[in-house]
């Protein structure tokens, strides 16, 4: 690489998505010009995907500590203490761009990647959740493509998770035009282990062997990390070779072999090869330990002949791991991997000079300080203005002719309808720990070794965040924590996936900044520090950005007991709304599902959140649920009170309620004000006492009945519909939209 041919250099930088300024920094760090292999190595390590160069300045605002946090951001996954000497590792990661280019493999390898992040720390994965977002299935222009992407993504997740043997226990599926050319696939995984079984991605111990294990390296996925840091154009469909191909069986073998090898005590550090493959694992492991790694590519198991150093270093072939063992104990590692039929090879050694030294048959082909790659990436404090929005503050005037018809329309919408068609393709029961699977407020997985269970939920809301990124982010944290509290769990820690558009646009950067600040404020308030996550930027197609879509995954702890259902189990119970009826006006109604599904509009602001009230509601909810004072519990969210009541009837039991309110009927039934939980109970007095102690309003709405949902407003009946009709409207809608 030299200055002799400026046009050629410009072209190379463009291919590698490096700026002129970044190139100059590379020259300065090296004290010379990089060769092509080195340029490739820098380009992936300094990509947005690996370096977080646009977001790092703001990510520092997130809370990351609590008494339970054993490992915060910066490792392969966060770790928290769950008591009894056990811990869980968990994280969320996106595979948005690959899933658009090749939905099946894109989603499958998204699952594979996050699972490796978990078991590389020593934890056995015990649960997966997915937050997936697509363009509308009925869109005239793109409906067929959106249906095909959804189908591919679901089958990819199903293929990988089922074969690997981890239950897919929950998630969310959302449809919005902004995801038309840019679906979001965010995968969360969690694993469990003992405190003394934790491993880190560190290359410690000068002279220790560096060992490559797992699948062979091929030419797939070269430049995946830099692709994931680019906007989509018409040419993106031509990038299929940069999407990796996954083999879940290989991953299962890798899991079992790694966990067994860890038990030998011969491993000192281990890291998976995910984005940026061999480059990332070597330089990060070296950088964390302050050591160097000297290795020869001729020892790297290869699937294809004639691969160049550039290709081997940048390959993102799946199901590979790098580990550092204690010198002299290599054979113990080989024996385990042989048992599982996997390849393992010593490719180099840990050195004391801090350099990543890559050789090809002895000849040095790249020589860069590990720190320069892992920690010296340029950081950008990108300019930001006011968050982008292109909708009015004032809403349209409207009057519903039938709120019953509106309710049915909401239940039949793809956002609110049953997602059973999706989750029945996932094995959500394997390992027999799933106490509450998909379809509830939160999933619950028990830890067999202790008396503790883990509740978890994934939440995002692009519409709220588009209207106000800061308030929207706070609302999703509140909602996620409320989901956990509704099943009786104490929220303890969070992971986040920040899906945003192009940070080089100041009004998009402003969405990112405000979104992060909102998350930071709420996570501090709800005492759920963020232990890791992922940032996915450049989610933009043909100049159109997605809604700012932070997705949070929060985990909570509860004692292992049979869970309380969401639906009303029998007639004759009192229906109690903790948190009261809430409030709304036209401005704060503009982000609701009613506005979207019934009015086809978006305006105003997201619902108002009173965080102290929310916290008190959640404390009271946990107390009620844990004291077994309720026979059903369901939090209010999308679609508001009417949808929550309808969902309560899906076990076949009806309800008869009369709502005393000053609100206009559309607001009373469908506003999405937070801090509300619905109970079906025979213990109204005790629940009221708990509510009073927590200074939380409580309203008795009516009773559960047989067979019919009747809702009256101030004595006037506005909904009267059989529960079978409600159920069938909701149950079959997705299949009908997919034409299956």
């Amino acid at each position, binding site marked *: 690489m030299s200055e002799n041919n400026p046009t050629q250099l410009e072209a190379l930088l463009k291919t590698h998505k490096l700026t002129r300024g970044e190139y100059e920094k590379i020259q300065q760090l090296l004290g010379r010009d990089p060769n092509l292999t080195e340029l490739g190595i820098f380009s992936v390590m300094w990509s947005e995907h690996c370096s977080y160069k646009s977001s790092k300045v703001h990510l520092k605002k997130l809370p990351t500590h609590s008494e339970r946090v054993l490992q915060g951001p910066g490792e392969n996954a966060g770790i928290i203490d769950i008591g009894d000497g056990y811990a869980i590792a968990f994280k969320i990661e996106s595979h948005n761009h690959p899933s658009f280019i090749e939905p099946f493999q894109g989603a499958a390898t998204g699952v594979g990647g996050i699972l490796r992040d978990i078991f590389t720390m020593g934890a056995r994965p015990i649960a997966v959740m997915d937050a997936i977002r697509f363009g509308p299935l009925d869109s005239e222009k793109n409906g067929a493509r959106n249906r095909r992407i959804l189908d591919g993504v679901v089958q990819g997740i199903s293929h990988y998770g089922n074969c690997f043997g981890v239950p897919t226990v929950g998630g969310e599926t959302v449809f919005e035009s902004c995801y038309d050319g840019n679906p979001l696939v965010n995968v969360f995984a969690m694993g469990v282990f003992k405190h003394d079984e934790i491993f880190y991605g560190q290359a410690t111990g000068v002279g220790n062997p560096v060992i490559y294990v797992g699948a062979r390296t091929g030419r797939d996925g070269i430049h995946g990390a830099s692709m994931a840091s680019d906007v989509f154009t018409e040419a993106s469909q031509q990038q299929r070779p940069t999407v990796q191909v996954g083999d*879940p*069986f290989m991953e*299962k073998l890798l899991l079992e072999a790694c966990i067994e090898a860890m038990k030998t005590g011969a491993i000192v550090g281990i890291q998976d090869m995910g984005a940026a493959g061999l480059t990332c694992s070597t330089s990060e492991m070296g950088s964390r330990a302050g050591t160097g790694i000297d290795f020869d590519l001729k020892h790297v198991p290869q699937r294809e002949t004639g691969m160049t150093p550039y290709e081997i270093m940048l390959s993102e072939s799946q199901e590979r791991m790098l580990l550092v063992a204690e010198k002299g104990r290599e054979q113990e590692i080989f024996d385990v991997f042989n048992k599982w039929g996997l390849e393992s090879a010593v490719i180099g050694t840990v050195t004391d000079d801090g350099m990543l030294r890559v050789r090809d048959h002895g000849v040095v082909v790249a020589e860069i300080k590990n720190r320069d790659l892992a920690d010296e990436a340029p950081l950008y404090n990108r300019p930001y203005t006011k968050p982008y929005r292109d909708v009015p503050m004032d809403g349209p005037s409207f009057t519903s002719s039938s709120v019953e018809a509106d309710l049915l329309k909401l239940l039949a919408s793809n956002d609110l309808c049953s997602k059973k068609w999706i*989750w029945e*393709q996932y*094995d959500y*029961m394997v390992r*027999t720990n799933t106490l509450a699977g998909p379809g509830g407020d939160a999933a619950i997985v028990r830890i067999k070794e202790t008396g503790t269970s883990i509740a978890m939920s994934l939440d995002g809301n692009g519409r709220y965040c588009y209207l106000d990124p800061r308030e929207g982010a706070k609302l999703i944290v509140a909602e996620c924590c409320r989901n956990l509290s509704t099943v009786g769990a104490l929220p303890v820690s969070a992971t986040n996936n920040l899906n945003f558009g192009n940070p080089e646009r100041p009004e998009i950067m402003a969405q990112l900044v405000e979104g992060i600040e909102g998350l930071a404020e709420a996570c501090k308030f709800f005492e759920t520090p963020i232990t890791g996550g992922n940032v996915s930027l450049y989610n933009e197609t043909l100049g159109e950005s997605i809604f700012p879509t932070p997705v949070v995954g929060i985990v909570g702890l509860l004692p292992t007991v049979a869970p309380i259902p969401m639906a009303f189990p029998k007639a004759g119970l009192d229906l109690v709304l903790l948190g009261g009826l809430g409030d709304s006006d036209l401005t704060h109604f503009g982000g609701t599902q009613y506005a979207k599904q019934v009015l086809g509009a978006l305006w105003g602001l997201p619902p108002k959140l009173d965080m102290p009230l929310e916290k008190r509601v959640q404390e009271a909810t946990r107390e009620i649920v844990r004291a077994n004072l309720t026979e059903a519990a369901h939090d209010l969210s999308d679609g508001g009170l009417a949808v929550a009541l309808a969902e309560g009837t899906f076990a076949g039991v009806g309800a008869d309620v009369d709502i005393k309110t000053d609100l206009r009927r559309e607001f009373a039934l469908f506003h999405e004000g937070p801090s509300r939980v619905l109970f079906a109970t025979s213990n109204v007095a005790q629940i009221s006492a708990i509510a009073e102690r927590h200074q939380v309003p409580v309203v008795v709405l009516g009773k559960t009945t047989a067979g019919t949902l009747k809702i009256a407003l101030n004595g006037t009946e506005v909904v009267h519909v059989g529960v079978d009709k409600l159920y069938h409207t909701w149950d079959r809608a997705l299949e009908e939209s997919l034409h299956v």
Partner: protein
Amino acid sequence: MKLGVVVFPGSNCDHDAYYAVTCNLGQQADFVWHDSENLNGFDAIILPGGFSYGDHLRCGAIARFSPVMRAVKKFADAGGLVAGFCNGFQILTEAHILPGALIRNKGLRYICKTVALETVSINSPFTNALKPGAVLQIPIAHGEGCYTADEATLDQLAAEDRIVFRYKENPNGSMRDIAGILSAGRNVMGMMPHPERVSDPLMPGTDGLGVFQSMLNSLAAISR
């Protein structure tokens, strides 16, 4: 009773079967690695669910050639009890220890859900603790569970009372709604549903316990 739970590299319901036998039924169990040919000391063998050797070809097509399957065949030929759940059933048909084949589900999709099963025969070591006609709620979780055989085989299975379970609502296209069958000697059973998933009071139901309890009854009767 001591059960052997066979572990192929891609087995993923091995721990669930082990847990059901040891923790829920209080019996002894041990894992048997796929390259072992030694089944000494086991009273019965379970072939658990999963993806044996990845099942890239047909489910169980490679597993039938494994060393442990040679031992399982001998064990079965000598009258030992062998139960295959899900992938275990697929392997038993590939190994020709049970007749027929399990092909892609009608609809070509993986299905995970709890289904209603009708107990067709209680004349077996795997169903003797059940009531005739009892309807059990047991989950399925498979992509290739459509039971298929020629008419003569199906007739023979029916005539010899070797169909143990039928689906009440056929989820996968299985011929004659077959969910589980017996070998001619009645000592080998394959079923696609997962009884080990509903053997714990915290799971949704305990209808799977009957299958394990039946095996215990039979073994107790033999040892008497």
